Each structure stands twice: as C-alpha cells, then as structure tokens.
C-alpha cells in the first residue's frame, strides 16, 4: 500500500491498470463512484482523520453483495440484478475507509477450480496467459497478483481462495468458519462457505482480517467470539514465547509443532511441489519447529464427503434463482417458466452439481449418501481435532499441480474435482487455512503451500505464515 501518492492518484492508476490488463478478464463490474470516494479518503487523510484502511483498494468477488452494483455470481441467471443491501464485510470495510473498487470474475456460483465456468468467460493467469488462474475466486486472485488492487475478497467453499492464490502466487486465507459474516455472500454450500482474503503480504492480510472478523447478528452461524484477538501469540497455546525452561527465545517459530503428510499422501503431486513442500519443512526445522509426520486416517473420504455435502446444499441454495422475482426469465405459464429460466440461465457445471445434490437428498438415497457424508464429516472433524492436540500447524500442499492450461481439464470433470484434494478438508472441519506463495516451478508458474490450524487460531496461523515468508524471501 503506497502512501506517497494521493488516493485520487491511486484510483486513476487503478483504472489505468484495469484497462491495461483487460485481457486477463479479472473484472465484471468497476465501481462507477470511485472518484468521489477517493476524494473523501483524501480529505480525511488531509484532516488527520484517516481510518484504518483509508484508501485501500479492495476487489470483491462477484458473489458478495454491494448495494447498487450489479451482482452476477458469474452467471447468466442473475442478469440485471441490482442488490438492495451491502454484505456485512462490505459495510465493515467501507466503514474502515477501504474502497470497493470492482467486482471480480469467478466460476459460476463459485463452482469450479479454473474460472472457466463463468458466463463472462475465463480469467487468465498473469504469470502465463494461456493458463487458468484457478478458481472459483480467479478474478480476485488475479486482481491482487497483477498488482491492480491492494487486496481482494473471495469466498472459499472447498479451496476457492487458496487454490487460485497458489496458482497466481499470492496469499489466500480462509478463516475459521464463523469468524467472518456470510451475510451478503450468495450461498453455494452454507455450512462450508467462508469469506476470505487475497493479499500480497501478511501485513495487509492481517489488517483486513482485523476489520472483517466480527460477530454479526444477521448471520446466525457467526461466532460470538469472532473478533480479532490482538493478544493471540505465535505460540498458539502460550502467552509468552519461551522454551520449556522459561527462557525467552528470540526465534518466533521455536517450538511450533508442525504436522507433515506421509509420502503416500503426496503421490499425485508434481515433483516440484513435493520439493517445495520438503524445503519449507526443512526450513521450519532449522527455525526450531518440531516437525512430525501425522496420521490422516480418512483422507480418502475428503473428496466424496465434500462433493456430497456441497452439492446437496447447493441444490437447495440455488433454488431461489427461479426467474420469479429477479434475474433471467424465459418462457411463461404459472410455473413452467421456472424450468425454462433455469435451463437457460445456469451453465453446465452448475446444472451438474444441482442434479447431483438433488439426487443425494432424494428419499431412498438420503441415507446412502447425504447421511453417510454427514457422519464422515464428523469423523474428519474429530480426526483434525485429535491431530491438533499434538501439532499446532498442519503443513500440506495447496494443489497437486501448478496452474494448468485453459481448456486442459474441462472435459475431465472428475480430475478437476480431484485437484481439490488438499483444500476441501479445512472447509469440512471449519478450520482456518492459508496458502502461501513458495517459489515457482520450471515453467515459471507459482507454487503454493498450505498451512492449517485448529479452529479459532487464525491469528497464530497468520503469524506463522509471516515467518515462513521471511525465510522464503532470504
């Protein structure tokens, strides 16, 4: 965040960048009132009344409601829809002086891992324009990676922030479920959805999280203790950073217990990702971390559990897009037009997931699929809870590969879904997780590695991520 220029200049710069990078297709809508908003920020700064995020440019994924700016969710079905209210995160950020500069492109209704399912066309990876940026928050990742915005908001249901962050070489953080209000986030899978942040450094990430982590009475699943905890320390379970003898230790990572995956869990990973993973763990050992292999007994259940729960909830959440009150309407009749409007308005991937979700909830199949997935979810959460009694942080890759070429996986749905292996479990368990940029592969594409920790240890997770960044930079 460059403080040497005025906010108005910063906004002109932003608009120029948007123009210059239009081929990346990162944005769907640009805020038309930026000039006056920037002027207000400049006045406040001049008057010494700058707010915590004064003039910070924020790109907002287009499934988050901003009053008066069209909301598309990357879909045709919301054609022409203008939201009547601000999402809670938008209110909080605006009150803190941040500028909601644009709405970003995304996979339709956040369903996708490559940003290729958007009705507004694919987003391109700034590191290689033939490659996907990841998804579903592809536009938000690119807006930050290309330096167009300071930070961006995304939503993460099964990795939709962390995976594009990894592909684009930026930080992507999914907080603990319940720490950031979902009010105003168009639901994909309500029990898994979480708004999170893209940034180029941990300082920006922390500053934004400090503002948006807040209990919200409009979201019943928002936690009463959602607020940022300034006292939380790097060493998750102690207030002072000391060793067993009580002597002060200057190494911030000392005695952080890190869990690593056994090699068999990395079988599908690209060799360069495995190398980066091992390098990070090595560095952590050198910095005084205690690294040990952990058991993840039910890793094979992660993907099926995720896709059953996510599609079941989605089939219900997306029922409101019926052409009755807003959006795309095709056909007539008392209710035939609902079928026609949905057939016309939804894309292939969304239809696929609605059908799957409808199927797993149907009478006669509910017990075999949805109920079983609920049970598996409990087992996964329990396994995580048990694991976090022995380690503070779990390290794992964010993705099995780096960014792949546009069009490469669109025909192979299952392989696309399987690429979410390392990200879905954090949503299933509700825990915080962050993807950290950790070098590049031979093709110059960014590698992202992931850290996860126990529920409500988000502050500690950010601190650890910050330390690893410092090591990576040296």
């Amino acid at each position, binding site marked *: 965040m460059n403080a040497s220029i005025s906010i108005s200049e910063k906004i002109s710069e932003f608009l120029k960048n948007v123009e210059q990078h239009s081929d990346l297709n990162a944005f769907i809508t640009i805020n038309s009132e930026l000039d006056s908003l920037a002027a207000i920020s400049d006045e406040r700064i001049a008057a010494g009344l700058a707010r915590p995020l004064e003039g910070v440019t924020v790109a907002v994924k287009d499934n988050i409601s901003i009053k008066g700016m069209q909301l598309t969710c990357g879909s045709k079905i919301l054609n022409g829809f203008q939201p009547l209210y601000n999402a809670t995160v938008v209110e909080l950020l605006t009150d803190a002086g941040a500028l909601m500069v644009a709405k970003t492109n995304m996979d339709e209704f956040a369903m996708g891992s490559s940003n290729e399912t958007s009705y507004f066309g694919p987003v391109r990876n700034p590191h290689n324009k033939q490659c996907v940026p990841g998804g579903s928050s592809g536009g938000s990742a690119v807006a930050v990676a290309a330096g167009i915005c300071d930070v961006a908001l995304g939503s993460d249901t099964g990795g939709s922030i962390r995976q594009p962050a990894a592909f684009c070489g930026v930080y992507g953080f999914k907080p603990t479920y319940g720490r950031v209000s979902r009010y105003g986030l168009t639901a994909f899978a309500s029990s898994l959805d979480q708004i999170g942040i893209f940034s180029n450094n941990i300082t920006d990430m922390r500053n934004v999280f400090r503002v948006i982590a807040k209990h919200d009475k409009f979201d*019943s699943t928002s936690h009463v203790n959602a607020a940022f905890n300034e006292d939380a320390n790097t060493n998750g379970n102690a207030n002072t950073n000391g060793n067993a003898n009580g002597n002060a230790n200057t190494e911030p990572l000392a005695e952080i217990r890190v869990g690593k995956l056994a090699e068999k869990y990395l079988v599908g990973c690209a060799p360069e990702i495995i190398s980066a993973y091992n390098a990070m763990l090595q560095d952590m050992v050198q910095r005084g971390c205690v690294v040990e292999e952990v058991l993840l007994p039910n890793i094979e259940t992660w993907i099926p559990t995720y896709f059953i729960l996510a599609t079941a*909830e989605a089939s219900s959440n997306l029922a*409101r897009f019926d052409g009755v*009150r807003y959006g795309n309407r095709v056909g007539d009749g008392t209710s035939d037009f609902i079928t026609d409007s949905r057939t016309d308005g939804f894309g292939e991937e969304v239809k696929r997931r609605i059908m799957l979700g409808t199927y797993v909830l*149907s009478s006669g199949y509910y017990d075999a699929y949805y109920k079983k997935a609920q049970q598996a979810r409990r087992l996964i959460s329990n396994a995580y809870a048990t694991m976090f009694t022995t380690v503070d942080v779990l390290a794992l890759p964010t993705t099995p590969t780096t960014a792949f070429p546009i069009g490469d996986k669109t025909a192979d749905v299952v392989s696309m879904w399987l690429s979410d292996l390392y990200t879905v479990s954090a949503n299933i368990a509700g825990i915080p997780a962050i993807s950290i940029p950790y070098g590049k592969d031979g093709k110059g594409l960014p590698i992202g590695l992931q850290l996860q920790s126990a529920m409500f240890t988000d502050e500690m997770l950010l601190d650890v991520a910050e330390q690893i960044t410092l090591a990576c930079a040296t």
Partner: protein
Amino acid sequence: MKSGYEAVIGLEVHAQLKTESKAFCSCPTVYGAQPNVNVCPICLGHPGTLPVLNENLVAFAVRMGLATNCSIREHSTFSRKNYFYPDLPKGYQISQYSDPICYNGWVEIETDAGEKNIGITRIHMEEDAGKSIHDLDIDTLVDLNRSGIPLIEIVSEPDIRTAHEAYQYLLGIRQTLVFLGICDGNLEEGSLRCDANVSVRKKGDTHLNTKSEVKNLNSFRNVEKAIGYEIDRQIALMEDGNEVQHQTMMWDAGSGKTKVMRSKEEAHDYRYFAEPDLLGVTVDSVMIEKQTGLIPELGLQKKRRFMLEYGLPAYDAAILTDDVQLALYYEEACQALSERSEEACKMVSNWILTELMREMSEKKVNIRETGIGAAQLASLVDVVANGSISHKVAKEILPDMFGSDVTAQQIIKERGLEQVSDESTIKELVAQVLLVNAESVEKLKQGKTNLFGFLVGQALKASGGSANPSVVCSIMKEALEMEVGE
C-alpha cells in the same frame, strides 16, 4: 356413515402466530396491507440473505405445546423443505422435520358419546409461503407479504372417528390458540388452515387402510362436510370392490365434492435436510416456566367451572366460554349482582345469549363495544330478580342503557316504573276489575277457566303496567275462589 364401517381421521392444523415480526426477519406481520409491502431482501429470498430466528416463534410454540400436554424437546433443529413454486421465494421453506419442538401430547374434546382424548403427534415451527392469486383475469399474481410469517403445524394422531369429531377437535384447537393469545384463529382469512387425512375400514379392523389427504378446508362447516363426503366416497369405493388410492384431494365447496388434486406418483419429494443457516433451538427450564405461567384457564376447563360455579346448563356455559371476552364479561356481571343466586346467574346468561348477542351480531361489535357494561347488566338482572320491575319492562328499558352508564335502578326511579307489589293496593285493584267484568266472572264460574288470564290482563292494564303480575295472579285467584266457594 354407513354402518359396519369406521373412519380414521387425523388433522394437520397450520396456525399463523401473532408475533410482531416475521419468523426470520424484522418485517411486520399485519394482515390486509397492500401486496408486497411487508417485505425485505430476507423474506424476498435475495441472494446472500440469511435467516435470524424470532424468539417469540419458539415461545409461542412452547406455550401451545404445554397447553396441549406435549413433551417439549430441549434441543430441536430446523430443516429445509424443498419445492418450487412461484410464491416460495427461496425455493424451500424453513421448517422442522425429524425433531419437532413439541411432541406426544393430547387434547380433550366433547363428543355426542361423551369426553374423548385426541392425541397430538407433534407441533413444529415453520415459515409461511407467499400467496398466489389466480382468480384475476390478467395473470397469476404473487403477494409476498405472507412470506416468512411464523406458523406452527399441529398434527393429530389418527384418533378422530367422525366428521363431527374432527369439527369438535378443530374448534378446540382454535379456542386454545385464541385463549393463549398466539393466533387469531380465523379460517376465512387463513390465519388457521386445516388438512385432513382420511381413511375408512370395516368396524373391528385394527389395520389402517390407504388414506387420502383432503385440502382446502377453509371454514368449520367445510371441514365437517368435506370429511363426511370423503368418508362416504371411500366407503362407496370399498363397497364396489375398488381400492382407495393414495391421493391428495381438493375440497370444492361449490359442488360439495372432493376432487383429485394429485396422485401419489405426483407427490413431492421435499428432500428435507438440516438448515445450515440456523443453529439448533434450545428450550430451557426458564422458558418452560415462563410459558406455563402465561397459559390461562382454557375452554373446557372454563366451561366446566361455569357449570359448577354458576349452575349454568352446558349449552350456556359452552357459548359463554367460547370467547375469552364474553366469559370475562359474564363473570364480571355475576360478580356485580347484589345477590348472586343461581337464578340470577342464569338470568345474566339469558340476557347475554339473547339481547346482547343479537346486538353484537347486528352491529358487528364485540361484547365490550355493545355499550352496556357488565355492572349495568347486573343492575338490570337485580331489579327483575327482586321484583322491582317485570321482565317485560326490563326489556323495554334495556335500549336506553346502551351507550350510557346509568343503572336500571336509576331509570326505574326516574320514570316511576317501579312495580306495585303492595297487597292492599292490588286487592283494591282486583276487586274493581271483578266488579266491572261481572259477566266474565260468571262465565268463568261456569267453567270457562281461560278467562282467568283475561282478568289478570285487565288488572295489569288498569294499573298501567306497574302492578306486579305474580302478586296480581295470586290475589285474583284468592278472590275468585272466595266467590266460587260462596
């Protein structure tokens, strides 16, 4: 019902709750507003909105559960009931499914064969859908003012055996809801709605046959008629050797028939699953205690007390206790009587059931708006009971009491209407009348006994209506016997 058969009936009653705001948003719940005025992004199902539970919905459901002898579930959850319809904004209704907040209760009804308990399977909380208006020429219109209005659904056990029992049960449920102050109980406006599950079997059978569900029962009379029709229809099918189909039937009040709305194959699969946007509902002992304290004396209880305490016949007691206001008014009036005898209490009831209720229905007002206070009515009963005026005179002065606060005593005094009961005065009057009507007296002596009434009438007339009729009667009788005896 044809003999040899028995009907098995269960009712599902939906009651709109009188909370200030909707179930999951802060929109008002008032009835009769312009269409689509009491709405917000939440009850319109706009993207990104989330439900927040109205605590009063829980409180009212618990109150009804306690009043119907239900067990109250400490932890219950909400579920989504998924189906598409233009008046259902989210494409699902937030409801309860496997763990309703109240379960396993009962209510008592009075039937022709005596008292009977009807089991309550469950009471669960949910939100109402909007309203589709099909009967306009232009198109189907949707009004979402109703979307998100809190409801409870009260599901009975299949304990009901006749259409009349179903009617009695529904009356009882309605009365309880109204007495608890949680529902208007208005079937016509739709604040109370009822579906019936009906099957028939041979008397003595214990198994349940295939049932049909009857919908669109929008008045108490229609509930009884539709169920009666459906029972007869099913018996006729069985008599002809046909099977009853599992169907949803629509009652058509115009033709007085039920018609097939949809078959089992067309039935919805609602794909219930736990509502992820809401936490579970916890009912603690503090709430139970508070809601128990808010339950007043209910219908049958009150009716029986009225019979016992005021010596009223069942008919009077039932009518007076059907309406909380009426019951309260009655008790106030009895309290205000200068001498509270069973006769006087029955007279109070008579006045309310005839003159006052006529006034209420003519002017479409409630008892409090008739313009005559309970104490005023008591004063009127007092003066009739103590013989100050006749019932006839009382009826004449009643209209003058409406809209004023004068007592009957004051009116009598002002107009000199007091009855004359003094025996010597009346003896003189009677002697006069017998003298003037000597011819009639002669005929009476010869056996024309019906002339006695004529003579009494003449005496009352001569007094200008002020003579106490019963005193006149007995003195007249005495005088005539003396003459006969001679």
